[in-house]
């Protein structure tokens, strides 16, 4: 009975999780080679060639990679620092409410919110104007739709830092880091040694899978870079949608090439990262 139950679970998982994804992937793959698509004339490598030679994909991938990396690094670092310094305060009701709040805000709202705050006609620009720091809207620094992706990174930080704080607080409690720290202290470790040798290794080891998953999630983010990004280079999902929805019907397949490439890279990376180390991660 139990085995049968498991079988049905797997069947449902395959039906709901694997089949649609595989079907979409195969569809994109066929589209990218021109095999399907109303405006296509049959098998061709032309779309792959033009995507790989134009370099837009790699630029966009590198750009997305850097943004996701910076955002994850800052938010993990910030969350660790907050956990280390403000653990006790965070346990009060009010503070935990403040921390939970941003988690309930969808990405698209965060994007608009950031835009309203930091654009040249936004909240801070208006305050600076009233206070006389600037005399014209154009003097306000570029914080959204900018080359350094400051707006995007800011939005990502507000979206994921609270999550990491909550995660680290839980791991801190469950792994008894408090007790271990006291133990280390009684054995003669100073505060610095405790955070470097006890606090950090335990927290990071227990959460690295989630950190990597969040990195991949940010790599494929859509709404925030759509609102706050610039026109070139663009983050991957924005590029893919733009290519697929373009006016030149003969080039729609290029969007599918980008989608296939992106899926392949992320899948391969995920397999390499998670498969061989899975045992070790749970053994410790």
């Amino acid at each position: 009975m139990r085995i049968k139950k498991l079988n049905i679970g797997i069947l449902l998982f395959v039906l709901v999780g694997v089949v649609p994804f595989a079907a979409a992937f195969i569809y994109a793959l066929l589209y990218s080679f021109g095999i399907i698509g109303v405006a296509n004339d049959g098998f061709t490598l032309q779309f792959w060639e033009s995507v790989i030679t134009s370099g837009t994909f790699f630029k966009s991938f590198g750009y997305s990679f850097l943004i996701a990396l910076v955002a994850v690094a800052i938010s993990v670092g910030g969350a660790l620092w907050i956990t280390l310094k403000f653990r006790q305060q965070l346990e009060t009701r009010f503070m935990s409410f403040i921390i939970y709040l941003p988690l309930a805000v969808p990405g698209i709202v965060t994007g608009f919110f950031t835009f309203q705050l930091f654009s040249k006609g936004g909240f801070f620009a208006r305050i600076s104007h009233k206070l006389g720091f600037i005399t014209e809207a154009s003097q306000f620094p570029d914080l959204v739709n900018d080359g350094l992706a400051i707006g995007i990174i800011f939005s990502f930080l507000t979206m994921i830092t609270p999550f990491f704080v909550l995660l680290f607080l839980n791991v801190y409690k469950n792994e008894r880091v408090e007790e271990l720290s006291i133990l280390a202290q009684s054995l003669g470790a100073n505060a610095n040694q405790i955070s470097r040798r006890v606090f950090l290794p335990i927290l990071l080891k227990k959460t690295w899978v989630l950190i990597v998953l969040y990195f991949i999630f940010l790599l494929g983010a859509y709404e925030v870079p759509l609102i706050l990004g610039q026109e070139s280079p663009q983050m991957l999902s924005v590029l893919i949608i733009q290519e697929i929805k373009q006016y030149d019907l003969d080039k729609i397949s290029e969007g599918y090439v980008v989608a296939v490439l992106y899926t392949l890279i992320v899948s391969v990376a995920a397999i390499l990262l998670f498969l061989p180390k899975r045992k070790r991660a749970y053994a410790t």
Partner: protein
Amino acid sequence: MKRIKFILFGFLLSLVVQSCGEKSTNNDDKLKSAPWEDIEAIAEGTTVNFMMWQGSTAINDYINNYVVPSVKGKYNINLQISGGQGPEIVQLVMGEKQADIEQGQVDMVWINGETFFQLRKVKGLWGPFVEQLPNASLINFEDSYISTDFQQPVNGMEAPWSINQFAIVYDFEKVPNPPKNIPELKNFIKEHPGTFTISNDFTGMTLLKSFMAELGGGPNVLDGAFDENKYKQLSQKLWKFINDNKQYFWKEGSTFPKEQSKMNQLYANGELLIAYGFNEGGIEDKVLTGLYPESTKGYAWSNGTIRNSNYLGILYNSPEKAGAMQVINFLLSPEAQLKKADAKGMDSNTVLAMDKLDTEWKDKFLDARKRQYGPTLKELEVNAIAEPAPEYMIRLYEDFRKNVIEN
């Protein structure tokens, strides 16, 4: 346990059966010659799905609070609206073609040149049907701005819905003498850096088309079929002009607004001194709703700005073609067109020819057109250019990205 498996199996089986069971009703071709009374009889009681751009409150208000109840009351038709424009419509049609869906989700669409070109390329439109509509007799198809859509003859495959012209928008209190040609624009942006930009969408590309005509030496340079050599020569001049001067554009030309609505906001909050758009700049409702200052005015470029019409089409796999014809005929009636022309409402120019209307209607139309802020179609008329062939737009999109944005 077996029961669950049966249920799952049954569910899958029913899906398969359903997807194979779609039967087409192929009486559609008869509609192209049937008397109007027959079409009306078939249309009665149907549900018609209309896919249209829903990005303006005035338009949504007109459709939801006037058109939907009117067709329900007059013809017992349930008109349902879904959001989507150009690329979404084309994507939908391509997807349904791919899947051999004979009963599509959408019956009628609101389109113009480019989408018309694409839909015809994938054979996504049904027709010709326009001659069948009684109210089509009120339209002057001799007017080339109506009968030709991006240099393509309409040939009854889409019904004109409204006509409009592109206009440049400015604030006369901040800019008493706005630029009217490319050399003046060059000087203007040098004096006021960061106050002009090109939106990376339909609107921006339309501006570039009129720039290209000016660089070619006259309003009619781009008329006729697409000419590769002409395009290459003129677009090179255009990219040179933009790249030489883009350090004076918004954000030093390092990026461009994704769409017109974003550019409008930049104009509204004072970052940009010049904006532009179809529908004679779309000024009236934006001033009335308080987005634009009351000192906003619109004008045409001295070499001309693009004038075009937008249209209603019926999709090839529309399940309710007769219903769609009835709705389109209503949208072309003097009553519906007058309501649409109201300067305080949707504010869009009628496609009906004044000399084909009764005097009573004519007076009403003249009265409805009184705008307080924006220019009228009549005022811009002398500087109108026809839409160039759609390939110009498609190429401009791609090359603007390659030569300017990514440069």
